[in-house]
């Protein structure tokens, strides 16, 4: 089981992701943005950070990196792609996921613990979770307010493609305590084929007891289980 971790200029969570994968006992390789080789990855992680300085819009430039062409092909063939924070922003800009991430409602950069309710365990990224389980996973972003057309939101909900919603620690609606003001409190969504997940919170920062939560490990474990259980998920060349 090998995780490929994309590195763009300005990526800052690549090493955190590698550490989480290492703690979980799996192999990781870094994938440089100028390369096209996914180096045999079973799952590609687009980590958090500020790729290309977030110039123009978050993720707008990273989308054109040579590596992203390979990631697009990999995703189209059913390969598992996990976009975290800036990675979610890149996936939206690349049209691998619908919608957009905009400035937080508060206009503040929020770096704090958030609580996510698992809305579906029927994805390769959440199968090691229970539906309605609340995960403690921190956010760290200034532009995480998820926005999409109402018809798109309706469709995401109808197809059970909302993976996570921000909630209060007890699982009740988050209300004004939302870290960013996302529409319908959406924190993470999957693609139509369910093989691409974008989420604003950072599971790799909730991967060891020292970090205050190990809930993020469930996402990495889900991916490992999915790859082990279903060889139909494409492995990158």
């Amino acid at each position, binding site marked *: 089981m090998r995780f490929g971790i994309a590195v763009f200029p300005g990526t800052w969570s690549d090493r955190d992701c590698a550490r989480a994968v290492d703690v979980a006992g799996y192999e990781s390789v870094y994938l440089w943005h100028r390369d096209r080789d996914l180096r045999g990855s079973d799952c590609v992680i687009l980590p958090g950070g500020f790729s290309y300085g977030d110039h*123009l*819009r978050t993720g*707008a430039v990273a989308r054109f990196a040579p590596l992203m062409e390979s990631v697009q092909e990999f995703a189209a063939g059913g390969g598992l792609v996990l976009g975290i924070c800036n990675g979610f922003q890149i996936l*939206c*800009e690349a049209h691998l996921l*619908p*919608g*957009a991430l*905009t*400035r*937080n*409602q*508060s*206009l503040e950069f929020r770096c704090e613990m958030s609580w996510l309710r698992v809305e579906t365990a029927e994805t390769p990224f959440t199968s090691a979770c229970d539906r309605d389980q609340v995960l403690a996973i921190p956010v760290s972003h200034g532009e995480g*307010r998820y*926005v*999409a*057309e109402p018809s798109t939101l309706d469709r995401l909900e109808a197809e059970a493609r909302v993976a996570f919603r921000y909630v209060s620690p007890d699982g009740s609606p988050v209300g004004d305590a939302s870290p960013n*003001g996302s529409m319908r409190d959406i924190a993470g969504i999957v693609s139509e084929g369910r093989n691409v997940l974008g989420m604003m919170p950072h599971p790799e920062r909730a991967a060891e007891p020292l970090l205050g939560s190990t809930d993020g490990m469930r996402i990495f474990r889900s991916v490992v289980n999915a790859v082990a259980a279903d060889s139909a998920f494409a492995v990158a060349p």
Partner: protein
Amino acid sequence: MRFLAEVVISLKPVVNDPQGLTVRAGLHQLGFAEVSEVRVGKHIALEVEGDSEAGVRRRVAEMCERLLRNPVIEDYRIELREGGSR
């Protein structure tokens, strides 16, 4: 010929603009009570070589479609004139 293209990117009316709300609150604080609505956008100035205004407009529109604006949340408007920016 050289043209100056000014692209104004604005948030779609349906997209909430917390920056605009904050600026409006600041203006009200300063006594500009007549301000009812503020929307904050982006201004991108491009110097472009081309043979005709129509041709340049078409190319700049393509740039907007492919990179400069995000169609999910943003609208754009192009103002074009002959000559450089200076």
